[in-house]
């Protein structure tokens, strides 16, 4: 009796698990299938495998949607901001974690509070204007870096405390200065946590839509998200093309997720589990 109940409960559990996964995957599947459909075929976005896959959709989208340029813009913004934020946040976290003076503790808490704070895009406009950063890729890249810093510092700070400080002292006695100590000895040891923040920040910058909406007004500076949104506005009736556009924009993120899932999950759950 009890084993019968166990089997029944196991079966139910597994069926529910499969249903949940299917519900999650369906939207992905619909988009991929319809990105190969003809315009008429994608009219009602359904789960049909197109008879003749329309690879040309992708060619059309890349040309009409200006995706090559948008891809380059997205890459520039994401890579630049991630490089700047990662190096600066790692350096700061190292010193904040090792030298817990009163001032440093205040600085740490001020930075980490940023995880909770919203960006005031309106007031920020004034500062961006002042610094001549409005409508520049450089400015938006710096902004992304600034936004990434609080979470980066939070994660790296915790990781640094797991590296024994005796290492620093030994290096110092061997004649290393601060820069050699940090970049030669500490930086390589931070690799796991840096991988996590690089992946998360890259995905964050790649996916962002609000910042360019506020600060980039010339179309040639638009990243993928804004290009896709604009394309969607113009081609709303051509769902096959919109789908192809969506696939191309999402592909890099999915690739990173598949390659670095362990790090991404670790980073995104770290804050919640460790508290």
């Amino acid at each position, binding site marked *: 009796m009890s084993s019968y109940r166990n089997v029944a409960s196991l079966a139910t559990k597994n069926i529910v698990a499969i249903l949940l996964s299917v519900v999650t995957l369906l939207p992905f599947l619909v988009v991929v299938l319809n990105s190969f459909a003809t315009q008429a075929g994608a009219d009602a976005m359904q789960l049909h495998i197109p008879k003749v896959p329309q690879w040309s959709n992708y060619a059309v989208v890349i040309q009409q949607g200006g995706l090559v340029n948008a891809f380059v813009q997205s890459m520039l913004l994401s890579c630049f901001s991630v490089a700047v934020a990662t190096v600066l946040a790692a*350096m700061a976290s190292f010193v904040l974690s090792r030298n817990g003076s009163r001032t440093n503790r205040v600085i740490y808490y001020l930075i980490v509070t940023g995880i909770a704070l919203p960006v005031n895009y309106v007031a920020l406009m004034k500062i961006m204007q002042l610094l001549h950063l409005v409508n520049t890729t450089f400015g938006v890249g710096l902004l992304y870096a600034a936004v990434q810093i609080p979470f980066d510092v939070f994660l790296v700070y915790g990781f640094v405390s797991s590296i024994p400080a005796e290492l620093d002292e030994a290096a110092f006695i061997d004649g290393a200065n601060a820069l050699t100590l940090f970049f030669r000895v500490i930086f390589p040891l931070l690799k796991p946590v840096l991988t996590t923040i690089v992946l998360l920040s890259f995905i964050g910058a790649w996916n962002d839509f609000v910042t360019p909406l506020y600060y980039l007004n010339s179309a040639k500076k638009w990243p993928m998200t804004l290009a896709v949104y604009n394309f969607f506005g113009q081609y709303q009736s051509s769902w096959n093309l919109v789908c192809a556009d969506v696939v191309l924009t999402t592909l890099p993120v999915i690739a990173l997720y598949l390659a670095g899932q362990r790090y991404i999950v670790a980073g995104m759950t770290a804050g919640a589990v460790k508290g």
Partner: protein
Amino acid sequence: MKVQASGKRKSMKAKIYPAYFLLGAVILYFALYLVPGILGIYFSFTNWNAYSSKMHFVGFQNFVKIFSIGENYLFYIKNTLLFTAVTTAVKTVLGLVFALMLNTGIAAKSVHRSVLFSPVILSFLITGIVFRSILNPATGMLNTILRDIGLAPLAASWLVDPHIAFFSVMGVDVWKGAGYLMVIYLAGLQAIPSTYYDAAAIDGAGYFQRLWNVTLPLLMPSIVVVVVLNILYGLRVFDIIYVLTNGGPGNLTEVINTVVFEQFSQGAYALANSLSTLLFLVMAAIGFLLIRAMNRRIVQA
């Protein structure tokens, strides 16, 4: 001797942990993140707008406008709170139920985990565009499936019907976020030592007794952080609503940040900034409490 040693230690500290290591991060974060937020408090007492180069001090005029009954701003604030409360509650509960269910006895558990986690890495923009299609009343996949399985009466104008549009938006948000919370809870569940359950079983505790007396109390730290993170996300929601309904039908799904963008686009900077500042102050307070709680836990540990 001792004094000398500690003096030496101090000078070494200054040499290998130099303050200039902080400069880059501090300057960038303060200039582009913290200062705008604080500057915003000042601007919210002015009549800053796109049509005049001069800013005048107007006292509480912007806030009086925001909190007056004759305007719609209170309704947008209420919407923001409703969105935050509903999505936080539903995601927290669903995530927990899924996690409890999938914690043991599931074939290919890691595959399910990867799949259920995946929507969180998608951009809100893409999610919004895809669900605009899925929720289309005439041709969308959701209504088609409902009709195919004989539930035609449930088919609805998801994003257009004034009674359900806001809930549809929340539903999409739940689709995107519930799996992420589930993974957090799964990690928390795995950290609970099985000896607790063994002890409870010896005491003759049933499933719900174990859930109530062992699992939930030990999972509480994760639950609290998850709730706080979701509140922080809900209050600043923008993309998903902008893309799905752009505040419509009418202004029924308008929230603080969609209004901020609209006012900003129309050049009404002072008002947009005042709304943004309200949000900043509320979230700064939450952030402050959060940091204090975290700090206390570290001290305790």
